[in-house]
Every structure is written in C-alpha cells, then in structure tokens.
C-alpha cells in the first residue's frame, strides 16, 4: 500500500520535472509555463531584470528580447545561466533562449510566460496623471491638458474644442480631487477610477462659481504613458461647451398683447437649466420693470414666459433679459438680451 503511495507521489514529481525540463527564474522568482508576471522598477536591482535558466547538460545559453535580432550571452554560475536585462521603457517581455548542450546539440526555446514591466507602479502613475490634469487645467494650458487624453476618447474633436472654450470663459480656476475608487485590469494596462472633482472659478465678468462631479475615469496605458480614454458623469471638464446651458432670446421671441408681454426663451444646449430670473422692461414716457422666475427648462427646448405690466404699454420698446441675475454659467452669455419696438 505504502509502496503504491510512494510510487504515485514519485511519478507525480517526475512528471513535474518532465513537463518543466528547464527551470526559469525572473528577478529571483521561479516562474512556470503560462505565468504572467508584472514587475515594477522599484522591485528591481539597479533597474535590471535578472533572467535565469537551469537545465541538465547545458553548455551555453543565449537570450533575446527582440525575436532574435540580437542575442545576448548568459553568464554561467553554479550550474545556472543568467542575464541581467535593463528594459529601455515599459514593455511586455517574452524572451527566447538559444541553448547549446554538452553534446553540441542546439535548441531554441520560447517559454510560455510573459513579463509585464512598468517603470512606475500603476497607482503612482495614475496619481501623476491626475496631478498633471489639475496643474494644466489650473494653468489653462490647453495643449498640455489635451495631451493627457487618448485619441480614443469619445467625441475627441468636440472635447478639445470644449476645453479651449473653458479657458476662454473661465479665469482663476482651482481644482481639488479625491479618489474614491481605483481598479486596474489584470495586466495593469487599463483602469477605471472614480474621482470626485471640485472646481472653483471666475467667469470673464468676474462672477464666482463652484461645481463638483464624481467622474468615473477610464484610463489606458499607451506605450509608456497612461492616458484618459473615457469619462462618465463628467460635469466639470469642457463644461462650458458640453454641460453648460445656453439660454437664448431674440427680438422675434418677444410679443405684446395689451398689458401682457410674452417672451419665448430657448435652451440651446444638451443640459437642463432652471431657477433663473427673466427681467421685462418697457421704456416709453416712463419705464416700468418686472420679473418672472423660471424653475425648469429642458435641454433643446423652449418656454413661453408672460409678464403683465401694471400700465398698458403704448408703442413701447420692450427689453427682455434672460438670467438677469447671472445665476447660471452659460456657454454663451452674449445672447441673453433682446429688445423689440412695437408700433403704436
């Protein structure tokens, strides 16, 4: 009975040896067929990854990292052959070996393991990216800010335009962020982070505004750099074009019937607007002014607002100012006022 158990265990151990005839170590760690190993610069000795191969009857071993264009001779020590490789940049390394045996027979070997080398630990690299976002946005440096975004970013051209628009409309921008979630994919080349952004800024007319948004940010590693490839729930970056309302009125939108002045107000944006004040002024022999409040106006829609003057205007010039208290930060603040003169 015991012999059988020992035989089974011995066979198992022998089988392991047969399957993995050559033994590999990467950075001092044993690796097996199919392994996927991620290494960071901090974990290396002098920035080099040490590859070691051990196999019975081996006389010489060479290694290549560029599919055989250049072969490096491995150093022999204590029956093993090793080579210290300094990756020039972040890369996925799949080494191949050229083995020469004592009987002068030769064999190439491409073990089925992959090394994912990254200079910076992904957490630190993404934090650096967020810091750059904050810095370039506060400095209103559009070209550097946009360089942090991948060309895969949805609606890329419009987003570039919207950032340019932000920097034209906003001054003295300050940002603060807080990371609420950090998740990476298996090989640390993709990530989704939830980042709470808070922004304070002045409009070109000097009015103070503040807003915030918990943005889900998708980031991908392209070459050496982490770049932003998607936003979800972004109400901050590019908001002057993407997520700010645009209230508009023109002279044709103003009507007069007896005491009543009617104004049709348009929201020309993709976001709703609300809680703004509309100012009505009638100037004739004397001026009378009145206000009406609008609580909500949907995206790409219009609303008719009527104000009744105390005295019936007679051949007046009626002026309507939308968002007269400047409560809403808009894409375009220059289309909020219109006047119309009615015949007597």
């Amino acid at each position, binding site marked *: 009975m015991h012999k059988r158990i020992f035989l089974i265990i011995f066979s198992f151990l022998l089988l392991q040896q047969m399957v993995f005839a050559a033994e590999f170590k990467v950075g001092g760690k044993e690796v097996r067929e199919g392994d996927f190993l991620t290494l960071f610069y901090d974990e290396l000795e002098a920035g080099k990854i040490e590859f070691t191969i051990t196999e019975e009857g081996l006389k010489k071993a060479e290694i290549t990292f560029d599919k055989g264009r250049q072969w490096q001779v491995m150093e022999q020590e204590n029956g093993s052959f090793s080579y210290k490789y300094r990756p020039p940049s972040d890369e996925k390394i799949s080494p191949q070996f050229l083995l020469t045996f004592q009987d002068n027979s030769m064999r190439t070997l491409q073990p089925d393991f992959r090394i994912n080398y990254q200079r910076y630990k992904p957490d630190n690299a993404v934090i650096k990216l967020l810091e750059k976002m904050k810095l370039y946005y506060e400095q209103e440096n559009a070209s550097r800010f946009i360089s942090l975004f991948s060309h895969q970013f949805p609606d890329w051209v419009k987003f570039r335009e919207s950032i340019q628009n932000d920097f034209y409309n906003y001054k003295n921008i300050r940002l603060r962020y807080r990371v609420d979630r950090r998740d990476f994919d298996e090989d640390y080349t993709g990530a989704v982070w939830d980042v709470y952004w808070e922004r304070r800024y002045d409009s070109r007319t000097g009015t103070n505004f503040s807003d915030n948004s918990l943005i889900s940010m998708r980031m991908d590693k392209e070459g050496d750099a982490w770049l932003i490839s998607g936003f979800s*729930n972004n109400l901050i970056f590019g908001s002057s074009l993407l997520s700010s309302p645009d209230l508009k009125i023109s002279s044709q939108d103003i009507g007069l019937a007896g005491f009543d002045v009617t104004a049709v107000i348009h929201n020309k944006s993709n976001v709703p607007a609300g809680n703004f004040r509309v100012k009505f002024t009638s100037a004739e022999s004397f001026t009378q002014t009145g206000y009406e409040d609008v609580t909500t106006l949907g995206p790409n829609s219009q609303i008719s607002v009527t104000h009744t003057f105390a005295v019936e205007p007679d051949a007046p010039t009626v002026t309507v100012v939308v968002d007269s208290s400047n409560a809403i930060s808009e894409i375009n603040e220059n289309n909020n006022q219109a006047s119309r003169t009615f015949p007597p």
Partner: protein
Amino acid sequence: MRTKRIKLLLVLSLILLPSFSLAEVSSTQSISGIYYHVEGNKDRSFYPANEADNLYEGTFDFKNIPLKGHEAFGNIEYRSTDDKLIDPQGFSIERMYMGARDQVQEILIGDFYQSFSEYSLSNALKGLKLSFGNEKSSRLILLGGIDTSRWENLWEERHEDSASRRHIWGARLENNYLNKKLALNFNYAGARDDKAFINSSNSPILVNILSVESRYDINSFVTAYSELSQSFTDEDIRDGAVKTRPDHAVKLGTDLNINDYTLSSVYSRIGNHFTTTSGFSAQDLETLNFYGLWFLPWNIKFTHYLYSDRDNLSDTKATTTRQLNPGGKFNLNLPLDVGLEFSADMRKRFSTDKETNGKTYTYSSRLTRDFGAFFSEFGYTKEIISDRIYSANERSSDIISFALDGYFTLKDVNFSWNLSEDIDHTSHKEVCEADFSTTTNAGLKLTFPSTFTIEARLSFSNNDYYLNDTDSENNNYFLGISRQLVGDSLAFSVFYERKGYSYYGGDNNYADNIFQAKLSYTF
C-alpha cells in the same frame, strides 16, 4: 504508525514546500498627521480654516498561495481618517478582492475591472468573475456585480457624492480560429441602475447589449477588425412602463503596417439611444478617423491624421454639428543632437442652423537637446481662433515655453533639478486687448546615501487679463524631507506646502498652509 505519518508528512512537504516558498505576503501600514491653516478670505479655500486631522492607511496583499492545485491571491486596502477632504467617511475599505486561478480557470470575488469591448461592457465592479479556458484558443468569462464607488454603498443608504449604484452582469466568449488569424468574440452585457442612487432630475436605466467583435489578419500587412453591437434600453425604469428602445453601434477598422508606414482607419456610428453598461461611449455620433505614421529617410517621422464627425444622426435635435480636424507633425533630428518637432492642426466646427462656425489653427514647434548634465526644451505655439458667428470669441495666442531638467552627483549626493518658464499672450480681436500670463517653476531634490531626501519646489504665476478685475497672482512653495529608518521597512516623511492666491482688489486674497507628517511600515 508514527513513522509512516512522518514519512507521509515528509513526502507531502516535498511536494508542497516548493509551492509555499513561492507564496508572497506583503503589507504596508502608515499613519499621518495633517494640519491645515488658511490665511485671508477663508471662504475662498477648499481647505478648513484651522484644523488638525489624522489619517491611517493600510494594505494587505497575498499571492502565490497554493490552494488545491490553484494559486490563491487577494488584497485589502483600508483607510481611517477624520479628514473630510480625503474621505468623507471615518473608515472605509478602499479595495478588496480575493480569488484562485490555475492555467485554465479563475475565480475572483471582490473589486475588479473588466473590459469586454468598446460597445458592450467596461466596468469596475464589486462582484464575482469566473473565467474558463485559455485566451489563446477559447475562453468563457462570466461576471456579475455592482458598479459603485465604495464598499460602504453596498450596505448603507445613499451617500452624498455617490454618483450611482448600477447592477451589472455579462458573459463573453472568445474564440481563435485559422491558426489565430481570426478572432471572433461574442459579448452579452446588462445593467440596471439602482433607483435610490439616481436623483430626481436623472432617469435610472435598464440596458441589455449584444455584440460581436472580430479581428482578421488578412496578410502580414493588413488587419481588419469590427464590432457590431445592439443595445435594448429602457431609459427610465422609474415610471414603471416598459418602453425599450433598441439601437445599434458599428465600428469598422483596418490597420495597415508595412515597413516604413502604418495607417489606422476606423469608421464608427453610434445611435442616439445606444447605451453601454459603463456610459463611456458617445451617442448619436458618426466618426471617420485616419491616423498615419510615416518613417522617412534621415530618421524623420511624419505623423498625420484626419478626424471627422457629425452628430444628430437621429435628426432629433434642432441642428446638426459637423467637425473636421486634419493635422500633421514632423519629428526629426538636427545636427548637434538637436531634436526638432513641428506640427500644424486645424479644427473646424459648423452647424446647420448657422449658430456655430468656428476654426482653430494651431502651429507648434519644439526644440530639444540632451546636454548630458541636463535636458533642455524650447517650445513655441501659435493658436488662431476665428469665429464667424460670435466675433467676441476671435483671438490669437502665442505660447512660449522653456524648460531645463538636470541630474548630477556630488560627493555621493544625487541632485536632480528642474526649471521652467511658460509665457502666454492672447490677443482678443474684437476689443483689441490682450491677456498676458507667465508661470515660473523651479525644483530641487537631494538624495543622500543614507536615503535621506530633501525636496523643494516653488512656482509663481502672474495673470494680467484685459478685464482687470480678474487679474491674479499665485504662488506655491513646497518643502519635504523623507528617510528610510530601518532597512526598507520603516520610513518617515514630512512636508510643508503653501499655496497663495492674490486677486485684483485684495478682498478675496487667501493662502493655504498644509503640513503633513507620515510614518509607514512595510513587510
């Protein structure tokens, strides 16, 4: 009997010990004290006026633990603080997962990020993932979970700042045929918003998506790929009436890769009601993009692109906006190891209702040289913006940047330093006025053989806008020291940072002072 047990234990040890020797367990625990002090107009600052807070952070990580023929792995990260700027909750679990895998299967429970494809599922989840098979031949992935920021959202009522809690489920089947020349993947994904986490002005959705991805290596130079996706979306599950809107997204692309030239071409069309589980995709948009890279003689690299798109495919908006963005960039090496880069880019936006008609021309040049002891960079960018509708938007900018970045060693002490200057002059055509701003940055870091490190940074910016009442001056000073105390295990760091903001009139001036001391232990 005892001898037998010892023998058996010895043999089992022979099998298991090598595996256990691969096991890795690591942990970092750190404790910090933070002090905030705001001078001047305190209402303008993000920080508390005068407050001391504490912060405790810890991680445990284990991998390569043998478990019934599988490798077990896991991680937990947690944080405890009374600093509301860092974490609005007193204690929170930042990340937590554990799982087991072998060559052909994997189970993972906890936090993970999974991306099936652009038009199906790409979410960070708290849930369960099962994977069977090998990605080189065929593989099946099944997953389900909740897409939400914090673990606390799973057992607490809706928390302030929590954007959403979305239930996600999905399956992906990956197949490789024709000696891996053809890849064919099938995706199914679904998502349902938790109504309690959606405020009254937004609508919770339910979506189911089917997508087919393919990639085919036509020959050694050309690869074609595609994704066809159909979504079925109920855009408001709150009102109870089922009103599913089907819509589709299509992506067709080719990659050309010959010796000296690469060209990526991709066409995509995304419907107005097309939805993914993640919300990262655009909607109601058609794009046609080309991106090429030509390696010319004398080590010259020519990058060129054309991005174009139009919205309102559904014809549901009052206007349709089209955008065109061609551009190119040359990279070349001049004598004396000087690198030169110059580029031109044009962006044009115009709409059918004639409300939008603007162009932006950007011309950039950049010179770089590595002098060995330091790296230098000089850049000049000219940007001209024309707008046929709103003349107030018309302006031209000249942006000059200069940077030096050096490193040297003196008596075993490593010095790294940097210096940069950015100058931005923007002329506004309509008012014949100009904005002028300058930013100066400088930094120095000394690393001693004992691992003692001193770092200092300073930054000044001066913004003179043509509207004088928005003028500002900002400054930022940073001083930090750090040292490893016991080997690589125990370390401390201390830093002080001051950020000052001065505005026209002086009433809004303020300055943030932040002091932080941190002690961390790693094993």
